[in-house]
């Protein structure tokens, strides 16, 4: 029976960085992927003359070569930077409410403050105060938490201890009275998938801070280029990968991982498994019930399956300007009531809130000359789609997409008439390709109670580790980082033997 030092299940962001970290340390690693291409969410697909970016909108934590952010350092360590070309975005985002409001924020603190002050003169003094808080808080979080200050205390990091778990909405209410301003400032809540009233200020502040300080990025060839680069380096380091071959069973003995059986029916021996599939699915579907302690499964009772997305990928027969698209990142909204918008994520009702990303604005080479593409997304839970009878599925999909296109038309009139290629992904599509219940794209719901402070990330099964959104947070930077840290934990455990 073939033997590996470690088996990595799933070639998503976390699986890839994890597998590569292990391979670079000289370990013999098998990477299993059920799909035919690496990346999980970080992938692309081709229709007509377009290669559509599936999931990456704004890569956080990169920073420039001179002032590297945490993610750049991770990718540097993994030896893939020379295979990739990153594209910096000048602007943070545009928020547009058809016929009502329109604002674009540059990815620069002072410019943001000035733009907001100009648009919200009544809040003139509150705006810089709020950014002072975001920045001071984030500095404390970086010092105290990320750099693991051994003398961390309430006295030394007062802002961190006061605000880390405070709902973002509460802080916004403390600083501002204009609901529109609050909506504009907190619009990244949709990247986290939790409305401001349940989104911890700690996570929100550090996200906003990181996007402003390290700038939003994309890369040539899209997220698939990153996945391919990580995999290539993995192979170059002696790693073995199998596509179209998922894991079927993780075997254990006496509470310790002993091997993995693949979908193709062969079994390999290993003492370490890094699972990049959902934690829940790993325990439910990849392990025998008697091998998972009851308390472990009960641990999931306090969590809930997070949101998926309804995505429309569009290839246009013209340049962005002709469509009136001037920004890469366009948040479209028709409300300041985020709770209501969020509630609709669990229904088939149109939400009136969506994100349209046109990559070609920042990277004119992204699509073929004379064309451009957009990923147009509204978050939505999988639940309402479970209720659609299979034979009404395609009708339901087009109906929902049409509603979203009507919203897009209000911001970019005539856009629908320029679409050459269109592909629509529902939560069921994400469920199919990711293999997660609910088609969840960010793991479980990331309410304040689900943040890192409350998570027991140790598996009761010895040798079983996790990477990806379910083990940390959703999004590219967190998942890429999680694979690396879990792999380091595995290496540490191996070294003890």
């Amino acid at each position, binding site marked *: 029976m073939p033997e590996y030092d470690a088996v990595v299940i799933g070639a998503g962001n976390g699986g890839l960085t994890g597998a590569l970290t292990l391979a670079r340390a000289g370990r013999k690693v098998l990477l299993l992927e059920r799909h*035919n*291409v690496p990346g999980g969410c970080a992938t*692309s*697909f*081709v*229709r007509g003359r377009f290669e559509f970016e599936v999931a990456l909108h704004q890569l956080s934590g990169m920073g420039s070569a001179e002032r590297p952010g945490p993610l750049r350092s991770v990718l540097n360590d993994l030896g893939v930077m020379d295979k990739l070309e990153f594209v910096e975005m000048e602007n943070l985002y545009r928020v547009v409410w058809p016929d009502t409001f329109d604002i674009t924020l540059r990815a620069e603190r002072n410019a943001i403050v000035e733009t907001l002050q100009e648009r919200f003169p009544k809040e003139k003094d509150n705006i810089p105060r709020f950014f002072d808080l975001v920045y001071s808080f984030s500095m404390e979080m970086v010092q*105290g*938490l990320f750099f*693991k200050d*051994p003398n*961390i*205390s*309430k006295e030394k990091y007062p802002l961190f*201890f*006061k605000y880390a*778990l*405070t709902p973002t909405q509460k802080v916004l209410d403390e600083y501002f009275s204009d609901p529109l301003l609050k909506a504009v400032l907190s619009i990244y809540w949709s990247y986290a998938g939790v409305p401001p009233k349940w989104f911890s200020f700690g996570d929100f502040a550090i996200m906003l801070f990181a996007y402003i300080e390290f700038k939003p990025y994309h890369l040539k*060839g*899209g997220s*698939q280029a990153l*996945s*391919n*680069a990580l*995999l290539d380096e993995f*192979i170059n380091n002696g790693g073995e990968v*199998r*596509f179209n071959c998922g894991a079927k069973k993780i075997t254990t003995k006496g509470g310790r991982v002993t091997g993995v059986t693949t979908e193709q029916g062969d079994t390999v021996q290993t003492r370490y498994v890094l699972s990049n599939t959902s934690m*829940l*699915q790993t325990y*439910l*579907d990849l392990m025998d*019930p008697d091998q998972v302690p009851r308390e472990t*499964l*009960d*641990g*999931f*009772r*306090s*969590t*809930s399956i997070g949101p998926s997305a309804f995505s429309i990928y569009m290839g246009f*027969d013209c340049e962005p300007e002709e469509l009136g698209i001037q920004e890469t990142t366009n948040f479209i909204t028709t409300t300041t009531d985020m709770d209501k918008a969020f509630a609709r994520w669990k229904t088939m009702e149109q939400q009136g809130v969506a994100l349209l990303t046109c990559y070609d604005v920042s990277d004119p080479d992204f699509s073929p000359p004379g064309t451009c593409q957009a990923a147009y997304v509204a978050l939505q839970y999988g639940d309402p789609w479970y209720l659609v009878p*299979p*034979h009404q*599925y*395609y009708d339901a999909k*087009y109906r929902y*997409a*049409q509603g979203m*296109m009507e919203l897009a038309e209000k911001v970019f009139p005539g856009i*629908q008439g*320029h*679409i050459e290629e*269109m*592909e629509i992904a529902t939560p*069921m599509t994400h*469920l199919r390709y990711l293999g997660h*219940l609910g088609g969840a794209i960010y793991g479980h719901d990331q309410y*304040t*109670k689900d943040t890192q402070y*409350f998570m027991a990330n140790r598996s009761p099964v010895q040798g079983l580790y996790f990477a990806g959104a379910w083990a940390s947070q959703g999004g590219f930077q967190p998942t890429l980082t999680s694979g690396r840290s879990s792999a380091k934990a595995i290496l540490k455990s191996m070294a003890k033997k």
Partner: protein
Amino acid sequence: MSLKDVIHDIEGYQDIASEIAVLKKYGFDYSAQRGQLESILDMLHPKKLRLRISEIIEETRSAKTLRLVPVQSYLPPFQAGQYISLVVEIGGVVTSRDYSMSSPPSQIGYYDVTVRRVGDGFVSEYLLDEAKPGDEFTSSSPAGNFYYNPLIHGRDLVFIAGGSGITPFMSMIREAAGRGLDRRIHLFYGSQSPDDIIFGQEIEDLSRRHSNFTWTSVISDPPQGYQGRAGFISAGLMEEVLGDLSDKMFFLCGPEAMYTFCRKELASLGVPGRRIRIEMYGPPKNITACQGWPESIDAGATVSVSMKGGKTITVRSTEPLMNSLERSGIVIPSLCRSGECSLCRTKLLKGKVFQPEGVKLRKSDRQFGYIHPCMAYPISDIEILLQ
């Protein structure tokens, strides 16, 4: 001291910790969802289908419809125009071919696939001559991108079919007629001779019953005294029959030669690329005639293909790599067999392959040396990594 020791000092920590304690007690027990994911997936996109021929319908002297019913469970939905990839084993070789459903999506009891005899059709001959009711097959779930999108294709559709290329259109027409959909359809249907028109009677009946559906049959090789339209589906014919072409959406499905011809005709009529959708058609009949094929390599050339850590085989340069692998008993995942879907995506370690224009490789796949073996022709000795 680490955060763990002082975590209770974070404002709000205690409250949340007690909320969690309550939820852990009363929250949903996920252990009930064991196996749920797969059963949800099976509703829409089962990994594989097991199908049985319930009936074989003689359509013309050279075409038959195989009516396929599910062996277990039920059939997943599809969009009119999509296909299944049917796996067959012929003389020890396992291969697969794509067949568009000719039945409409509203027919949920069976899938009809209609097979026409083609000159050297390895699989079509088997299905026409050997297959019989009761035979069972494995197939893929419905797949493919040749379908009508109500958001962007408008309501005025022109279908251009050649030979067995009628099958996806038959599904679309039957669906539009059966569901009373608000679309106008004109079908141009090119056949070699009047005897080759598949579904002729049904098409005629539908066009009589539905004012929004009309058709023109065009015979390329008419018998003496033939009264109907003869020739090809030309620009002149289209203009004459359709009148104003603006806002019309064209769908093409048929043999390679028809595409070459009709594409030019549509271009001459000024139809923009956005308003033309063409179904893929598998590997070209004669790869050496393709643009970019290296002149130095003739039709008889052979090269060696070695699989890293495995065996080495000798193959013909003019056959798609996937077919050569299948001939030597190596079955790699396949679906579209036209270079589109990337299911067969394989890493090329050494040597060169020729991939005709239209093979849909991702940019970064190209950068990192991946090929689509279903439409890749080895033109030197190569080494591949089967993953």
